[in-house]
């Protein structure tokens, strides 16, 4: 039906192989790694000296070139500067060496590459409720670099010779398929293989958590922010699965991470250890919201139009814990409209009606409100809503259609 449905679905088919490769790493849960035991293994301006790592860096420089030139990047200078400052705050000794890129991909994800550049997915910005949470994820990613996880896991793999041959093969498949998106940054199969070999062990994930929360606390953010990220991720995945009548999906990127429940518990314990009684912590919610504010409608749009009603509704309700507004009510309506089960049409209509009562209702809320009214046979009110829409958005791409309706 769409030209590339074919190709994309073939890649998601291969995702199965990636999950197997990842499964090889999952062992039994380890004891909690304490933040105070986590010291950075590298200093400022780190450069590799050994041959294998030099080779790896060379490859990664090509990957970074690809990433930096990608048209999937959001290059808004205010946003990129904000992210760069954040990693500069929680990046420990390497703070000044990191590069950070923001990719327009509506998924909960971020990743650190072996040479110290990170890619943050736009879906992450939608899900974080304040700066402390975002800083937590970034500190975790920086932790991987500070603890030299990439080269350590690479060498680890090579030692396990038998496993390597099978693992490399599966990982090759996984690499090509795993990132339904990542694969596009890295078009060479060889690089895909290299990347998929960087699936971190549970222990490394636990280390990055401990390292990250330590940096987070040192930077003055509320340490408890980090465990709430996992709480939200678990909640979202469960909500999504429940809608489709299945168990929480396995084989997601976070599968190789220690099970989210364990991580959440460990991070809570870490946070209690690190919290200094009487000290005032700030989560910088206002600063966060004012920075991402201009792209928030786009972030919501990208998520909701994926028609994953369980996840989207959970996300909207999570964000609404800080207060409902016209934008959130509008997208709540969009979730029901796209789901389109019996009874969803009136449900969506109610949300649109609620949305337009807020002063910040987006123009699109007025259009959908108008369409809902028209379908209910309330043509007078519908025309007024359409008129309001056209007034707010005179150059709307569908103005010709709306004008005919408002006729």
């Amino acid at each position, binding site marked *: 039906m769409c030209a590339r449905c074919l190709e*994309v679905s073939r890649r998601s088919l291969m995702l199965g192989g990636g999950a197997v490769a990842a499964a090889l790493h999952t062992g039994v849960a380890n004891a909690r790694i304490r933040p105070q035991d986590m010291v950075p293994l590298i200093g400022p301006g780190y450069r590799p000296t050994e041959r294998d790592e030099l080779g790896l860096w060379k490859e990664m420089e090509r990957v970074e070139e690809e990433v930096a030139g990608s048209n999937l990047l959001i290059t808004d200078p205010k946003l990129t500067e904000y992210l760069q400052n954040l990693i500069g705050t929680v990046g420990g000794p390497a703070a000044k060496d990191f590069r950070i890129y923001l990719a327009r991909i509506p998924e909960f994800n971020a990743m650190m590459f072996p040479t110290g550049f990170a890619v943050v997915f736009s879906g992450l910005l939608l899900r974080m409720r304040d700066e402390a949470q975002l800083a937590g994820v970034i500190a975790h990613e920086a932790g991987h670099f500070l603890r030299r996880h990439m080269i350590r896991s690479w060498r680890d793999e090579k030692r396990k010779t038998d496993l390597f041959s099978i693992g490399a093969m599966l990982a090759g498949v996984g690499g090509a398929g795993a990132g339904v998106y990542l694969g596009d940054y890295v078009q060479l199969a060889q690089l895909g293989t290299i990347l998929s070999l960087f699936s971190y062990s549970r222990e490394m994930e636990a280390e990055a958590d401990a390292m990250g929360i330590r940096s987070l606390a040192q930077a003055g953010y509320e340490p408890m922010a980090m465990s709430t990220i996992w709480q939200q991720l678990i909640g979202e995945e469960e909500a999504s699965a429940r*809608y489709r009548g299945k168990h929480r999906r396995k084989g997601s990127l976070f599968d190789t991470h220690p099970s989210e429940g364990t991580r959440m518990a460990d991070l809570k314990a870490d946070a209690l250890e690190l919290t200094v009684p009487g000290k005032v912590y700030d989560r910088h919610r206002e600063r966060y919201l004012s920075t991402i504010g201009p792209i928030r409608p786009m972030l919501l749009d990208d998520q909701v139009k994926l028609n994953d009603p369980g996840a989207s509704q959970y996300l909207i309700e999570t964000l609404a814990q800080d207060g409902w507004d016209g934008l959130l009510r509008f997208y709540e309506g969009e979730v029901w409209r796209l789901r389109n089960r019996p009874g969803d049409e009136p449900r969506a209509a109610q949300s649109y009606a609620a949305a337009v009562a807020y002063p910040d209702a987006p123009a699109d809320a007025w259009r959908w409100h108008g*369409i809902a009214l028209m379908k209910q046979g309330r043509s007078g009110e519908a025309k007024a809503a359409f008129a309001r829409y056209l007034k707010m958005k005179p150059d709307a791409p569908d103005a010709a259609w709306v004008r005919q309706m408002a006729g």
Partner: protein
Amino acid sequence: MRSVAVLVVALGLSACSSLGGEGFGYSDYSLVRAKRVSVGDGSLVVTAPQPWNRHRPIWFGDIRQVEDWTQNGATLDGISFVTGLKDGKSLVRQRRTASQQVPIFRSNMTAPEVAAMIESLYRVRGGSVDFKTLSLQPRPFLNTSGFQLDYEHLDDDELWRRGRAVGAVIDGKLYMILLDAAKAHYFDATLPDFESMVASAQVRRG
């Protein structure tokens, strides 16, 4: 049927996924000659101004009311015919348990709702990260009042593609012809054929 599908995947045959993507089987292309041809489930007839390639699934897994053609390969261009999609059906076959779903068609849908359905199709199944509606306007189609949607989308292969869909809901069923092609060169190159087929389209009654 499902166990057969699993078997095919397990054996690692070079199975092409069908356009629906959720069923698996063999598929190939066959020549469409420059003449009057019926498409989809046979209820729509168009005149191809020059030869095209019809993507023909041999096995199962496709929607009978949807047929896809291409000139230079699916990555570069494609024309799809939707020939009377019924209420409650979607443009592609999908698993009920897939977390992201292409919205289903409802016979009372207005043009913006059909447009939103198309947008989600690209986002859910086409890997689009950005989708811009360029215009949505009334346009007569199949001797009734229909719509024309123009759009462009950035896909995860970092290519901008452009599309035009012309459609109408007749007796509660969706009829639509859709062109989707790389924005650079291929859209403009295939647009005249598309327009000529839209103009020649007729519903075959009975």
